């Protein structure tokens, strides 16, 4: 399967949607997105490098700007494939979820959506910094229109803030990338924007100081996109105002672009800078986890709450990434996937409520489990997934991210020293409690409690009869909506119960990304007087019994055993 197909197919979809009649738009787009899904599955089946960490297919579809070595290098390793699958999996579901929510300008909506998918495909498939940037940046345009045409009442400022903020960040990313390429060209005399060569050059030949600034620049964009704590303020607004489909794809895939960028570009390209800034980002991650979780607590708008929860969750990913060990890395990849599934699904659920009641205020509704039991069931599943209940998808990622942070010490025995350590992890793990708090409060307000249907007339019997609910939709979820949520729920369970599949395939990639880190981390720690004793903390310290057979009982007892 030529990866170019995966980019061209949604583009064709966009064109077909744009020129076809408005009434066909949704189906055209949906069918094309299904085709992309099928294509990506074929790709995944063909993908031979699941367990090697190598890239496939290393296809070069011609040079885009030969003078600077910018070329259409496409291909991916297992992490790319996973994110690709996540995207192609979520897009058809999101499109189907928009069928009833989008009531005007159908053609434009679905066209933008297909363009969005195309640019996401490009971003996840390119092996060239500039083309990655093209895909990465162009996602802003469809998203901008999705928010500002079909969004809520504050849609315009929200869209502009989203666009400007992200643009501001990512242009620094571009500048930093160009800087590395320019230095590389200086050194070798040949321009090359291929990620592989840039990464190699960046980590091997840039000085620590350069790496610091390069990393800061690269991460500036990715941090905004992720979003990391103090630069997150576009997200609640954008999520809140976006139409359901926009929110879903924003949470499920677009945020992953940021963390993917950190994982694939920023960390390997400037490891010394990453190490230098790791504790800073660790603190930011903690702030994201704890502070936004507390902010979630006082939200009254359920969509805003979930938006803030996204920030909190991405904090875990950041912690995992900056742990610099396979546990954290793989945990954060797991978490990216699982956050895409569960938060996306939560937004879909909220969208379904919004289509029926036209409100997202938690105080306006209550006890909907009685009114819409099927919806309630899904809502509970995804909420639990979101709060990291073991057995569901959120847990492995969260657990491993925090564990990775935990063992990210200078003398930790995993062979991958880090700069964070237990205190970071323990504080961040406070997010486990806070996360449970706000999510359960949300459940308690809208799913549980005495029945209160928003906008309902005083006479409750009116709802009792007739299955017809609000907005021309059935009272509980209809078959289409169940068909949207069910695959996600199944994916949630599968990921939670058999994460091995993902862990296996991400392991080589994570090790590849980490390859130059132990050295830099050791140097960094040594400069701070924390020497890594030959790589590993010895199992030490369990003192062997003096006689080899007679351990000393540590509880005091009246009858002492004579040795």
């Amino acid at each position, binding site marked *: 399967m030529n990866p170019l197909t995966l980019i061209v197919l949604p583009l064709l979809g966009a064109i077909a949607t744009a020129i076809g009649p408005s009434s066909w738009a949704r189906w055209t787009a949906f069918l094309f997105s299904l085709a992309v899904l099928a294509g990506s599955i074929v790709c995944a089946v063909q993908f031979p490098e699941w367990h090697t960490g190598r890239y496939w297919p290393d296809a070069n579809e011609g*040079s*885009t*700007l*030969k*003078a*600077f070595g910018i070329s259409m290098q496409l291909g991916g390793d297992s992490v790319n494939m996973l994110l690709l699958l996540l995207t192609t999996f979520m897009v058809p579901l999101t499109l189907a979820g928009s069928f009833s929510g989008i009531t005007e300008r159908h053609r434009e909506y679905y066209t933008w959506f297909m363009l969005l998918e195309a640019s996401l495909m490009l971003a996840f498939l390119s092996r060239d910094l*500039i083309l990655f*940037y*093209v895909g990465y*940046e*162009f996602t*802003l*345009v469809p998203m*901008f*229109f999705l928010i*500002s*045409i079909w969004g809520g009442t504050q849609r*315009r400022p929200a869209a*502009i803030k989203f*666009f*400007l903020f992200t*643009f*501001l960040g990512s*242009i*620094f990313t*571009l*500048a930093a990338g*160009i*800087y590395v*390429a*320019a230095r590389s*060209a*200086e050194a070798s005399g040949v321009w090359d924007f291929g990620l592989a060569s840039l990464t190699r050059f960046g980590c091997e030949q840039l000085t620590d100081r350069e790496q610091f600034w390069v990393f800061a620049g690269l991460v500036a964009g990715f941090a905004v996109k992720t979003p990391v704590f103090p630069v997150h303020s576009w997200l609640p607004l954008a999520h809140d105002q976006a139409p359901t489909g926009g929110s879903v794809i924003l949470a499920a895939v677009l945020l992953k672009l940021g963390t993917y960028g950190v994982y694939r570009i920023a960390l390997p390209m400037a490891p010394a800078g990453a190490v230098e800034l790791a504790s800073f980002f660790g603190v930011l991650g903690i702030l994201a986890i704890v502070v936004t979780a507390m902010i979630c607590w006082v939200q009254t708008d359920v969509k805003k709450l979930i938006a803030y929860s996204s920030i909190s969750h991405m904090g875990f990913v950041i912690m995992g990434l900056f742990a610099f060990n396979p546990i954290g890395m793989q945990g954060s990849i797991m978490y990216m996937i699982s956050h895409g599934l569960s938060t996306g699904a939560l937004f879909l659920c909220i969208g379904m409520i919004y289509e029926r009641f036209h409100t997202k205020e938690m105080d306006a509704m209550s006890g909907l489990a009685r009114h819409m039991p099927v919806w309630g069931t899904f809502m509970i599943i995804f909420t639990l997934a979101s709060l990291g209940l073991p057995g569901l998808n959120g847990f492995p990622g969260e657990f491993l991210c925090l564990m990775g942070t935990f063992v990210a010490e200078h003398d930790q025995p995993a062979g991958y020293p880090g700069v964070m350590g237990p205190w970071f992890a323990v504080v961040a793990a406070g997010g486990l409690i806070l996360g449970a708090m706000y999510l359960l409060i949300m459940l308690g307000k809208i799913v549980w409690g005495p029945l209160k249907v928003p906008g309902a007339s005083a006479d409750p019997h009116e709802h009792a009869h007739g299955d017809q609910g609000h907005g021309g939709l059935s009272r509980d979820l209809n078959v289409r909506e169940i068909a949207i949520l069910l695959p996600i729920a199944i994916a949630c369970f599968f990921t939670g119960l058999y994460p091995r599949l993902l862990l296996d395939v991400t392991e080589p990639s994570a090790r590849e990304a980490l390859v130059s880190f132990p050295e830099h981390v050791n140097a960094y720690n040594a400069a701070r007087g924390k020497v890594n004793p030959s790589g590993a903390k010895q199992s030490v310290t369990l003192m062997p019994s003096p006689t080899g057979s007679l351990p000393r009982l540590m509880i005091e007892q009246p009858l002492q055993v004579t040795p």
Partner: protein
Amino acid sequence: MSTTANIVERFCSLTPELVVFCGSVVVGVTGLSKSRSIRNATSFICTLSLVLALIAMAQNWGGRVSSGILLPTVSLYVGALALLMGIGFVALATGSMDRLYEDALSRGVTTFDANKVFRGEFFAFMLLSICGVMLVPGSPDLIWLFLALELTSLPTYIMVAISRGTRRAQEAAVKYFFLGAMSTAMLVYGFAMLYGSTGSLQFVHIKDALTAQAAMGGIDAVGTIGLIMIMIGLCFKMTAAPMHFYAPDVYEGAAAPVTAFLSFIPKIAGLTALLLVLHAAGWGTSLPQSLQATLWMVSVLTMTLGNVGAILQRNTKRMMSYSSISHSGYMLMAFIAGPELGLPALLVYLLAYGLSNGALFGGLISVERQGQEIEKLEDLAGLARRHPSAAAWIALGSASLMGMPPFLGFWAKLILFIAVIKAGHTPLVVIAAVNSVISVWYYLRLAGVPILSPAGPAAEGVVKAPSAWPRLAAMVFGISVLLLPFFLNRIMNAATAAARPVPNATTLEVQKATAVVIAPTVVDRTHPN
């Protein structure tokens, strides 16, 4: 080589310019014809002469002289660019600029009105200005440069004055003309200083003299002051700070096709003139630090003032004037980057800027209300519903100008940033990047209002402009913004070839490359020198 032969040879080598000049003479006559059909042919003749000039350039009619010219290859590229864009500007003006007078004529009014555009003179001036800009990069000496610049500028003063027949247009003309005259004086005074420092008017000699001075411990005070004054004088042409103040008023007052013209033709005249002057001053090798610093400052000031000015605007043309100012700032960065990468970057940027700007103006010109052009941003609300193509070109142009990938503007900006970073001026790029973000603000508004806002009462009565030519031009501009990124390699090759430092060896190559880009139909019949 005898002087006479030299003069003849050089005169022959100006065939493309002469074609355009002849065109302007013809147009000046036919435009005044009593017969409506002949009058209507004016813009065709215009286009014809431009196309002929292009062919002449590609086919190398009349030979090519490169001795005594600092950047002969650049002059080809710039000339081709001016001609190509000129065709677009002619199309933008056709059927929109001359409507008032034609309407009056059709009503039977035949009295002369100095306030009204007459086809003949308007298009003649347009061609003259294009002719001027073509002459600028090929200047062998200061006199030529001075005359070429004046040939570019003087017609535009009149074009502004007669563009709309309104007080605003005349006010624009007043400001443009008087400030232009002042800047010319500064420029000429700078020329005098430069002459005084080097003792020659020939660029080749000036270059030698300045290089020698630089090697001796720096260009002397008179020379430095001269160079600075020339630069500041040229800043007027390219609307760079601190000489940009006229631009918003003039661009707002002039009719939209003239504004589009102003935001490109005089600008490239100024930029290429600066190119020559800097080249003479040892660009890339021994450019005095004072000039470098001044350039840096002017560039930063220009882009910043342009962008922060634009975000306050509600008038599209005024906004575009600030946008044009800010792009001058970006282009000035190329001068700081040095000739090796900066020059190709500048050349690509010129192309991208011209096309994107053209697409945007084309979108604006292709709608009107009661015969008046649309100026207020609010009037554009809901445009996407009624005139989707106009809205699309505006959006495309904005996206490209803001540097949104994958449109042409992005690639131009990318190459520019690459050049500047390679030259070691990363902070400058950071400033430019921040400026890009500021620019996103108003470009988004420009692109967004037609698509997002529902058509309010302000947007009542907005209809398609009667003439198809501006729409066609807009379409061509817009599509090229969209599709040219697929031909980036060719564009880059052409620009690189044009920017090659050794002139003689590469003239043919540039010709080829230029021909490949601009006139694919005639590429195979390129003559050798």
